[in-house]
Structures are given as structure tokens and as C-alpha cells.
């Protein structure tokens, strides 16, 4: 299968869409490289599903164009587009067996029976469901239905695969397994993929790149590591992962937060002394009972299995820290920041970006 499909790039070129008088997608720009898996990540109502539906052809953009492999497909009906969608509720046809579901598109194309059978068997083997060929959707589990939906999309050898929150109907354990399956299959087939999700964990673990969306725009488009380490905006920083936020000033080697508390911070460089927003990941909060750290006292200790979460009072503010189980549970602690990101007016200040410590 993978041999016959040459991966194609997708370009969403300054696309806008209004629905019921509200601007859902606002002058959006996004490029997905051939063979890449891009996640559209954002809270509900951010326009991610609308964007996906425009790529699939179920909605027409009000402005802008959608290009696949350099060809404008914006005005094509869904059945004419080289895309295939996996729906949130799987959308398997309940009156057809798994074989009939998967072969539907091939039968429409009037392929020889032998070829249809081969291709369906091949794709069902890819998703590990050959034994359910003659089952009906109602007879198989949610995770299996999910894989049938994926097989049904892949069998048509689309240029772009679209996944609309495909895992949201599965329980937590299965979700992790199926997302890994999807990533593995995607890489094996080498298909250009757009994956919509509101789950940052999901996005971080399977994407080549993640586009964080808010208010119909892309806030940041970057690979998972960059997105996590250097969130470009305050929104991205708060949406992806946990983050302690303080208003304060940056000095050389320390930050000063509300209540005049001075916290030592690696790599901090003084910049004008104007108040800024300071973000610190909980795992970058260093906790010890001695040293030159700012004094904090522990409010709560939350066991998280392989690590502990400490909630501490730091002057007037609260600080959350992820620490190893070896950290002693004393009420008084000293706190340092190993790394901080600084925002002015909601946007990352690259000039004050401290060199990553670890």
C-alpha cells in the first residue's frame, strides 16, 4: 500500500470560516509536510474541528484556499478529494459487516473483486482485525471499531488522512494503546496526517508537529519538545502542560515575584526591570531543605505514583513542584527555579530566554 502512495503536503492558506455569525477560523495558515503527522490542539470551540472539516470538504472556506500536493481542492466535494476522515464516533455503517464497511469505497470504484478482497485483507491485517472481517460493528469493541474506521480510511490510499478526536470515546488505558497503534501505522504507511485533539498528552506523544489553536488562529506551530520547553505565548504555556505563573521582575540570576520574594533562577538576566509574566514548569522547581533558595512551606503533598506533587506557599503566591520520592517531607523547604520563561503582553520574550539548564 505504502509503495503506491507518494506522500503529499497539505497547505491551509489563509483560510477563514464563519458559522452562525461567529468567526470560527480566522485567517489561518498552516503547512503540513508530506508524511508528517500534525496535531491540531486546542480547547473546544477553537476551530480545530472546523478546520479539519474544511480540509475534508464537509465545509467550504469563506476565504483562503486548501491545497493538497499544490492543487487547490477548496471547491471540491468530499467524494472528489484525496482525503479520508476518521470520525469521532467512527461512523461505521451498522448494516454492513466489517468487510463491507472497508470495501465500500473500493466497490464504488468498481475494482475487480479479487483486488478488492486483497486490499481489504491487507489493510485489515495492518490494523490487526482480519479475524473480524465478517463481524458487524455492533459485535466488536470500541477500540476495534476505531481500527475498522482507520482501515476504511486507509484502504482508499488517500493523500491526506484526517482524524477527528478519534480516541475521545475510548477509556483511558485503551486510548494510550490505540494512539500508539495509530502513530505506528501512520509511520509505516508514511501518510500525511492531521489529527484533531483537545488532549495535550495525546498531541505531545504522537505528533511530528503540533499546532496549538485558540480563537480560530494558530498560536504556535512547533515540534512537541519546542512547544513544551518554549511555549510562544501565555496561552500555549498554560494550555500545554502545567505551569506556575507569577507577575514579577527579572534580575540577574533571580526573579522577584509578588510580595518581594526573591527566588534564585538559573540563567535569568536582568532586562529593564519592567514587570513581566514569569512561567515555571513544576519539574523546574528545585526543592531542598538547605541552600540559598526562597523560603516556602508545604501546604499539600499529592502522591502521583513515580513522583510527588508539592503545593507550597511562596510569599503571597503558590508554587507547585514535581519532585522525586527522595525529597524529604519537611514542612519548611527552600525553592529555586532551574528554568523560567518570560512573557511580556502574553508573548514569549526571546531576549530574556534563559539557556536551558538540562
Amino acid at each position: 500500500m505504502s509503495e503506491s502512495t507518494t506522500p503529499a503536503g497539505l497547505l491551509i492558506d489563509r483560510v477563514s470560516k464563519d458559522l452562525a455569525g461567529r468567526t470560527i477560523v480566522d485567517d489561518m495558515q498552516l503547512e503540513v509536510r508530506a508524511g508528517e503527522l500534525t496535531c491540531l490542539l486546542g480547547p473546544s470551540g477553537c476551530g480545530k474541528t472546523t478546520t479539519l472539516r474544511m480540509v475534508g470538504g464537509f465545509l467550504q472556506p469563506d476565504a483562503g484556499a486548501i491545497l493538497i500536493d499544490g492543487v487547490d481542492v477548496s471547491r471540491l466535494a468530499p467524494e472528489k478529494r484525496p482525503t479520508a476522515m476518521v470520525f469521532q464516533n467512527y461512523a461505521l455503517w451498522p448494516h454492513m459487516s466489517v468487510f463491507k464497511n472497508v470495501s465500500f469505497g473500493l466497490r464504488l470504484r468498481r475494482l475487480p473483486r479479487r483486488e478488492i478482497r486483497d486490499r481489504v485483507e491487507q489493510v485489515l491485517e495492518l490494523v490487526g482485525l482480519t479475524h473480524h472481517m465478517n463481524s458487524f460493528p455492533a459485535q466488536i469493541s470500541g477500540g476495534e471499531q476505531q481500527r475498522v474506521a482507520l482501515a476504511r480510511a486507509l484502504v482508499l490510499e488517500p493523500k491526506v488522512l484526517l482524524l477527528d478526536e478519534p480516541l475521545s470515546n475510548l477509556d483511558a488505558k485503551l486510548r494510550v494503546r490505540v494512539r500508539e497503534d495509530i502513530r505506528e501505522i501512520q509511520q509505516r504507511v508514511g501518510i500525511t496526517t492531521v489529527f484533531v485533539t483537545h488532549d495535550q498528552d495525546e498531541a505531545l506523544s504522537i505528533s511530528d508537529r503540533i499546532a496549538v489553536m485558540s480563537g480560530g488562529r494558530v498560536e504556535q506551530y512547533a515540534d512537541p519538545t519546542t512547544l513544551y520547553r518554549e511555549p510562544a505565548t501565555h496561552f500555549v504555556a498554560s494550555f500545554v502542560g502545567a505551569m506556575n505563573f507569577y507577575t514579577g521582575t527579572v534580575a540577574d540570576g533571580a526573579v522577584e515575584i509578588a510580595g518581594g520574594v526573591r527566588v534564585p533562577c538559573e540563567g535569568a538576566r536582568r532586562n529593564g526591570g519592567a514587570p513581566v509574566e514569569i512561567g515555571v514548569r513544576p519539574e523546574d522547581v528545585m526543592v531542598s531543605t538547605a541552600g540559598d533558595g526562597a523560603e516556602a512551606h508545604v501546604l499539600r503533598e499529592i502522591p502521583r505514583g513515580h513522583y510527588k506533587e508539592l503545593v507550597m506557599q511562596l510569599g503571597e503566591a503558590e508554587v507547585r513542584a514535581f519532585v522525586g520520592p527522595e525529597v524529604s517531607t519537611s514542612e519548611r523547604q527552600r525553592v529555586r527555579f532551574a528554568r523560567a520563561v518570560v512573557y511580556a503582553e502574553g508573548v514569549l520574550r526571546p531576549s530574556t530566554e534563559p539557556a536551558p539548564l538540562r
Partner: protein
Amino acid sequence: MSVVEQAAVLPAARPRPRPTARSVALRSLGVVFVLALLVFMVGPILWLALRAFSNVWPYPRFLPSDWTMKWWHSVFADKSLGHSIKLSFEFAPVVTVASAVICLPAAYAFSRFNFPGRRFLLVSLFATNAFPKIGLYISMAGVFYTFNLMGTFLGVVIVQLIGTVVFMTWIPTAAFSSIPRSLEEAARDAGAGPLRVFFRITFPLAAPGIFVAMILSFLASFDEAQGTFLVGIPNYITMPTEMYTLVLNYPEQAAAVFSILLAIPSVILMSLARKHVMGGRLAEGFQIR
């Protein structure tokens, strides 16, 4: 009920609790209620069945004193009665098909498109059932005279159609609405055009609901008497209109025989539809938003 079920499922786990006086009283009340319902529902039918075979049935006796088949013979011997049976079986399928042709596209539109006045139109279909039928038919008769439809086949079909519109629209609307739109979108995505999507996906999934609607329409047309009487007479006399003549001109035993004949298609079709009615398809008819 629940006590019995628990005992059946977990025979060893817990001993069956002793029935309290209260639960015994409640249960016997339930039995009395069911029996009363049975008497009211089955009683008249039973009486009718006995009546059809009785010659003499003096008042205080529990059963007829003299049995006979002569009412059945006289009904089957009467040519006009035979003709009316044939006519009924002509009208009902024609009306059902015409109703489906008219109402199914409307039902699809009600379910899939949100147009101005949608709710109002949907509810207004009940208007034909809200007014006394005879008043409606009399005003229709005025229109029918103008268009020379009185006493014609078409006229009878139209008047019978009126009674089927509600079922033929509401039930299929619910059936179409219960199909998630993504099922149709997935078929578009796989390369099917809108028409093919309808015939390969939407229609097969809505078919049970449509089937139930068609059975109900068939029965509504089959049992329709007032309008058919008003419009069809004297050229088209179907089974239910024949009943009027029977009640007036024959002994009531002949009417009993005819009622039983009239009930046969209903019983057959309802038992055919039972599976789908029980499956909740009929109940869906009233869950449209």
C-alpha cells in the same frame, strides 16, 4: 417482580425474602388491574366472535343457545360484499404508495434541513387529526364537487391520504433523524455522491421506520370509513363503508362476521410490524426535536 428476578439470578447468594403484607396487596392489585384491562380489551372481541356463530342468544345466558354458520354463508354469498373486500385491497396499497411518494421526501427534508417554519409545519400535520374528521370531509366535499372528484377513484385516494400523512411523515422523520449525519459524511468521504449515499446508507438504515409507517398507513387507509363513505358513494364502497349498510340492513350477526373479516389484515400486518414496534421504532416517532 424484582424479588422474583433476584431470587432467580442469585439462588444461592441470598434467601428469598418473605413477602410482606404490603407487597402481597400491591401484587394482587396489579393482577386485578391486568384482569380488568383484559376484560375491557378482549371482552368485546370475544363477544363479537361468539356473536358471529350464534343463532339464538337469549339475554341472561352466558353462551349462545344455538350455534350456526349461516351468517358466514350469507356474507360470502353477497356479491356486493365480495366486491367491497376487493376494493379495499385495491385502495390500501395505492394510498400507501402515494403517501410514501409524497411524504418520504418531506420527512427527509424535515430531518436534514433546518428551514424557516420547520417546526410549525411539522406540528401542523397533526391538524388533520385535531379536528372532527367529518367536518373536514364536508368542507373537502365542497372542493371535490368543484373539481369533479366526488365518486371517483382519485377522490377516494385523496381523502384516505389525509389520514396517513401524519404517520408517513413523523415516523420516517424520526427514523432519518436517528441516523447520525457522520454516517452519510463517511460515505461521501469514501467517494459516494449524494444520491448514492441516500440509497446505500440513509434508506437502508431508515427502512424499519419507513416499513412501520407504511403498515400504519395501509391500515389507516384500509379502516377509513367516513371520508370514503362521503366521497366514494355510490361507486366505491369499501369494507368499512359497507359496514354502515350492514349495521342498518342486516342482523347484527352478519356485522360481527364482517368485523372479523375486516380485522384479519390488521392482525396480520400488526404482527408483522410487531418486531419493529417493539424495537422502539414506533416510539421514536415522537422524539423529534
